[in-house]
Structures are given as C-alpha cells and as structure tokens.
C-alpha cells in the first residue's frame, strides 16, 4: 500500500502571493479553475494502491482547508488528513515529526511533494522506476534536465533540477534521524531541510536515484497556463469553447459555470474565470486569473494579472502586468520573492489586485501589487499599493 504526503507550508510562506494569501491559504489558491492542491490529489488518486494523502503544514486549522479536504475525500474516495506542525519544521522536519502517522498501516513507500510545484506528476512511472532499482536505495527524486539554471542550483546533480516530488521507502526516516545530530540532541526549533541536509548525505551513500522526466514541472506562477493546456487531455470539459451568444475564446480558457460574460468579450489564451464573475461589453482578458465575485466593467482590458475576489475593474481601465517568466515559453522559469525588488524598484511582474480592490474607470494599473480592500483613484505603475 502507498501513501502521499504534501507539504503545504504555512502562512508566512509565499511572499509574492501576499495580497492573495491574506485571504486564502496559498495551497487552496485556484489554479486553472481548481485549488492548487487538487492537481496533486488528482494525480495521487490515479496511483494504484494509494490509501491515504497527508497534508503537512503549519496553517491553523481553518474552515476553508477543512471544506476542501472533506469534498476531496468524497470526490476521490481516499482518506485525506491535515497534520499541523506546531512550528515550521522545514521540508524534512515535518515528515520526520509525523513519521508514525505516515508509516501507520505499513505503506511500502510514500510520495512526498511540495504543494507549490506544478507537474504532470508521473507518479506511476516513478514507482516502476523504483521497483526496477531493487531494494538497495531509499528514495527516488523526480528530476528534469534544464538548459540553463533559473531555479536554485542543485548541489548534487549538475544539470538536473529537483522537481520537489519524491518517492521514499520508510527507511528514509532512519536517515533523517541521523542527520547532523548535534551533540546533546536536535533543538526542536531547528529546521531539517530535506534538500540540503538529507539528500547530500544520501547521495554520498548512493541511496538516492533520480528519475528523469521530460514532462513539465514548474513553480506555481506559470502553473495555470500548463494545467490549462493539460486539460485538453485530462479534463476537456473544463475548457471553454466558442459558442453562439458566448464570448470569443482564444486558446485555453476556464470559465466557472456561474460566471456572467457578455458575448462581446474576448478571453484567452490562458485565462481562468472564477465563480460569479461578471464581465461586461467589449472586455478583453488575456493570461490572467479572475477570482470569484470580481466584476470587469465594459471595455476594460486585463493582461497578465490576477484580479482578486470581489474586486472591480472600471470601464476602459487597463490592468496589466509583465509576464514574470524570463522566457514565457520556458516552464522552468521562476521569479522568487527575492527578486521582488531590483535597483530599488519593483521588478516588472504580473499585476496582482488583492481582494475587494476597486479600480476606477479609465486608469492604468501596471506592474503593481494592490493590497486588499483598496479603492484607487488614479493610475499606478511599478508600485506596491498598501
């Protein structure tokens, strides 16, 4: 039997998402129309013998997370549980702390994944690869080759990048337990970082294999686009089609069935429209996420942006970001929070409107982040608007 563990982090993670993670835990942020985590869970549910999914993080238990877990359990007929760390224990510390829970029922192996990666999740392939390699190892890392490094350079595999998706046998915990045990025992507050503290050691002992995939993976920023594209095979019903009396659809677009969209609007490519969104005459949306309850008034134009819950964009307003990937065709590209500022200014990136933000008519909001509940009264460029 198999299990899966998803590291969902906690409230102080995900700085660039801040105006949005105020409202919803980042793992529940909708990507391509469904909560980010649902993509992981869908992939796990397809693996034979999967018995349980454990979410580990340091969010306070909250209603939204509970609701999500309950409905996912129903939908996928799987046990899904949330285990809360008392503090951030690091990517290795969390699983170590909850090792008894993970091993209960005696899984032969378990997957571990970061919540904030997006992938086709070739879990079944990783499993076969693991079996082919026999019993002499305790883990498989999903890795992929990149032509140039944009993520953190990997210290132990030169041209292979770690995707943040692993398969471990229970022996992994024995190894984590021996990590640099300081004399006198590990302080509880000290994080155990899987990538740096554990893998380096395991690699030296030839206990780790890398399963190389050509399938995409990416940080969450470009995930929407990749998942939307995957829907052509996995969930064609989630993609909007051009229909009489409906808006013009270009490329991959997700529209929630309750959204109200004028037939003269033009949407896509790579657009997700959430629940109850209202879109007026002659509105243009490209490469953007419109979260539930938002209103886009007539003739406005939204490009490379996220419009927060219940926000309003006025007539002829332009809300525009800059695609944050250095190369929009490069799924591995990532903008880290460290690059939020450069040369004293906000680096051009997607524009994010927090929840319940009001953009007046005819202004432009460009490469900016607007924190929640803000009524703007003029144009802004390259700014964080508190």
């Amino acid at each position: 039997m198999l299990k899966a563990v998803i590291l969902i982090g906690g409230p102080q993670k995900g700085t660039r998402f801040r105006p949005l993670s105020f409202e919803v835990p980042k793992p529940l942020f909708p990507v391509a129309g469904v909560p980010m985590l649902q993509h992981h869970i869908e992939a796990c549910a397809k693996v034979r013998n999967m018995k349980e999914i454990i979410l580990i993080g340091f969010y306070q238990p909250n209603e939204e997370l509970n609701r999500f877990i309950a409905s996912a359990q129903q939908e996928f007929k799987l046990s899904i549980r949330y285990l809360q760390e008392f503090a951030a224990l690091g990517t290795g510390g969390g699983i170590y702390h909850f090792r008894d829970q993970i091993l209960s029922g005696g899984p032969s192996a378990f997957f571990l994944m970061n919540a904030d990666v997006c992938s086709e999740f070739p879990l079944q392939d990783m499993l076969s690869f693991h079996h082919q390699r026999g019993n002499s190892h305790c883990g498989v890392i999903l890795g992929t080759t990149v032509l140039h490094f944009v993520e953190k350079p990997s210290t132990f595999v030169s041209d292979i990048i770690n995707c943040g998706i692993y398969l471990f046998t229970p022996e992994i915990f024995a190894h984590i337990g021996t990590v640099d045990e300081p004399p006198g025992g590990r302080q509880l507050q000290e994080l155990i970082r899987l990538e740096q503290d554990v893998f380096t050691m395991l690699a030296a002992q030839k206990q780790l294999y890398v399963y190389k995939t050509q399938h995409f993976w990416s940080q969450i920023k470009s995930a929407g686009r990749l998942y939307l594209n995957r829907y052509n095979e996995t969930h064609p019903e989630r993609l909007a089609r051009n229909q009489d009396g409906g808006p013009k659809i270009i490329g991959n677009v997700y529209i929630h069935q309750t959204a109200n969209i004028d037939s003269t609007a033009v949407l896509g490519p790579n657009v997700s429209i959430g629940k109850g969104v209202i879109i007026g005459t002659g509105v243009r949306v490209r490469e953007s996420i419109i979260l539930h309850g938002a209103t886009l008034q007539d003739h406005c134009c939204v490009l490379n942006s996220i419009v927060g819950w219940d926000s309003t964009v006025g007539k002829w307003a332009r809300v525009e970001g800059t695609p944050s990937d250095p190369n929009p065709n490069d799924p591995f590209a990532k903008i880290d929070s460290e690059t939020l500022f450069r040369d004293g200014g906000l680096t051009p990136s997607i524009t994010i409107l927090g929840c319940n933000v009001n953009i007046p008519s005819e202004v432009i909001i460009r490469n900016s982040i607007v924190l929640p509940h803000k009524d703007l009264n003029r144009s802004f460029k390259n700014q964080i608007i508190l």
Partner: protein
Amino acid sequence: MRRGQIRGTDHTIMEDKWYSLATDDPYERADVTSPRPPVWILDETRHVYIKENLFKVKPGVVLPVVPDAAVHRRCFRLQFHFHFTLSHLCRMKALILVGGYGTRLRPLTLSVPKPLVEFCNKPILLHQVEALVKAGVSHVILAVSYMSDLLEREMKAQEQRLGIKISLSHEKEPLGTAGPLALARELFTDSAEPFFVLNSDVICDFPFEDMLKFHKNHGKEGTIVVTKVEEPSKYGVVVYEGETGRIHRFVEKPQVFVSNKINAGMYIFNPSMLKRIQLRPTSIEKEIFPVMAEEGQLYAMELQGFWMDIGQPKDFLTGMCMYLQSVRQNTPERLRTGPGFIGNVLVQFIIQDPTAVIGENCTIGPNVTIGAGVVLEDGVRIKRCTVLRGAHIRSHSWLESCIVGWSSSVGQWVRMENVTVLGEDVIVSDELYINGANVLPHKSITDSVPEPRIIM
C-alpha cells in the same frame, strides 16, 4: 430667394430673410455649386450674416454697389461695421512666414509642411488666411523655403475659393523671420498701405481689424500683438507703456518681473519699415524690433482672448482645447452633441465625403477633433485628441492627449496617452500600451511603449 438683385443698384433690404448671392455672373455660379462654399457668419450685433452663398441683412440696411461680386462679399459687411472705404480695404496685403522646418511638430511635419497640418480640421494656414480675408485682405504672400510644391498646390486651390490672390515668395536659403520681408519688398512698396506679417503657427481669435485701427491710431511704423503668459521667465517679454502701447524694450527670459506680455507673432507695419531690413538671414525679433522700439516706432497691442503657439504637440493639443472653447462661445452649432459626446467635440463634415463613422457605445470628448473619413469602431473612448483624416481606431481602445496621424490605424484595446503623436500611416497593434511615443510615418508598432520615446 431673389437672384441677381445685388448688382447694379443699391439695394435696400426690406425683409428679414435670407438672400442669395448668386448672380448671372458665371464666376458666381461656379462658386455656388462649389463643394465648399464660403461660410462666413457674423454675430447678431453686426447685422449681416453671410452663410454659404446666402446672406441676411437687418431690414433697412443699404447694400452698396460694388464692381465685383467676389469683392463685394468681402467688403460690404465691413462697410457697415468698421467704416472703412472699400478701396482702402481691398488693397491690404499680408505676409505669412511659412519657411520654418517645423521640427518641433515632427513627425507630422515629415509628411506635410506645418502650415498644412490640420488644426481643428482645417490647415493651420487656412485659419489665418480666412481670418485675413474676413478682415479685408486681398493679397496673401507666403514666404516659403521647403516643401513649397505641396503648399503651392494647396493654396492655388484656395485662391479661387476665397476670391483673393495668394503668391509665394521662395527663398533659396532660409532667411529667418525678417529676411523674407526684404525678399518680397516690391509687393509692399507699391502703396503706402500698412501690411500684416504673421508667424504661421499661432492660433487665436485673430484681431486683424483691431490691429489696423490701433495701428492707424498711433501712426508709427509698426504694431506687434502681445499676449499675457503665466510664466514670463520662460519667454522673451515685451515691456511697454500701458496707456499708449509704446514699446520700451524686449527682455529675454526675465529673472525679475518686468512684464508678462510676450510677442504673439502677429504684426502690422507701414511699408517704410522695410528699409530697415537687408536681404540676408535676419531675426525680426532680435535684430529689427529692438531698434524700432528704441526709435519709438513700435507699439504693442494686447490680445483679448486665447492665444497659443501650436508649433509643438503639447501646445497643439492645448491650443485645440482653447480653440474649441471659443467655437463653443461663438458658433456652438459647429460642435457635435448628443449621447456619447462630452464637452467640445468637432467632427469634420464634407459634403461629398462620408462623415466620420462613429460606432456604438463610444464616448468622445471633451476636446476632440475628428477629421474626414475617420472611423471609430464600437466602444472607443477618446478625450483631448486630434484624430487626423482617414485614421481608424478599432474597438474598445482608449486615447487621451494624442495626435493620431493621417490614415493611421490603432488596434483594439490599445491605451494611448501622454502626448503620443503618430505620424502618417502608422499601425499600432492590438492591446498595446503607448505612453508618450513619437512615431515616425509608416511604422508598425507591435510592442508597448511604456515610457515616452521616439520610435524610428
């Protein structure tokens, strides 16, 4: 409507109604059928209206006999109101300086010489020439140096329409603002009548009649019109005696306040002043005026109402707003109103051409001029813009403070602002943001221009 009644005898108007100016004279008939009949409308107090080929006079007014119908039209109203004699007025001349390169109005002036760039749907030069004609000028001399062919052709066409003589004075090298007067000297010395001199790029309610009166009144060699500015330290100012207008001196960019009046680029001179000017490149402002002022021969007349030097895009747009406001006050019927129109909007109407086409759900204004054959698709929002002939703005775009060049095309959901100037036949792709760009003619723009710059 009575035909042919004006000629031959003095005619006393009995009824308050429209009379036709059409006569049996073939020239007149040609004029009546011409697609752009003269439109001269005088206000209430002046008693006479001439509109297209019709005129209307307060009952009891006596129309004088005049030798020629074209002259007649120009002169008879002046008789009533300014008490000048016909012979006097019909001999007046004006020289307009049109020889500059207009570099500051590029990219528009790369396609068309500055005097022919349409300001509020009419070539800049025509604003001036028509005002001169109204004031009784019968001979306009254009001092040209470059691109004069186009100018010549265009102005020949206007000669007939306006019933005046237009000559070109070609200079081989640019002669500055005074030299052209020396070149055209003979044209002004055949009588003792004063003549007008104008810069070709100023716009205002041209005060030519007042200038003539003021000038005759002081009896000296020259009068320049001055206008008030807010920041005199940025200009050359004119210091003069408030009572009489006699100019004491000129001060370049004064650091302490001496005056807030600047040269408005409109002058009237006696022919005797021409002896001061040599046939060589000379600046009238720097080399001639100071000497005339010194000798007590130069007077300043203060301009009433708006004034703008429209020689650069930013001022062109400001001047447009001022001009439209004066249209609002004087001839509001020329402005377009109705749902979707806000404030002062001027839409070109030419009888043979289709009017500009304006789609649904557009909001236009305040302060917009739209040239002939322009197409605005659905949901376009424009304010404070000049859209020149044949331009096409596609749906849902938003434009503020722009000049859209002839036959240019702006895509859908484009946002264009901050004194963006598109030259002739520029194409802007869909969904771009254009901030303060200066785009040379025949360019296609496929990327946003987020900060002001020149697109070669």
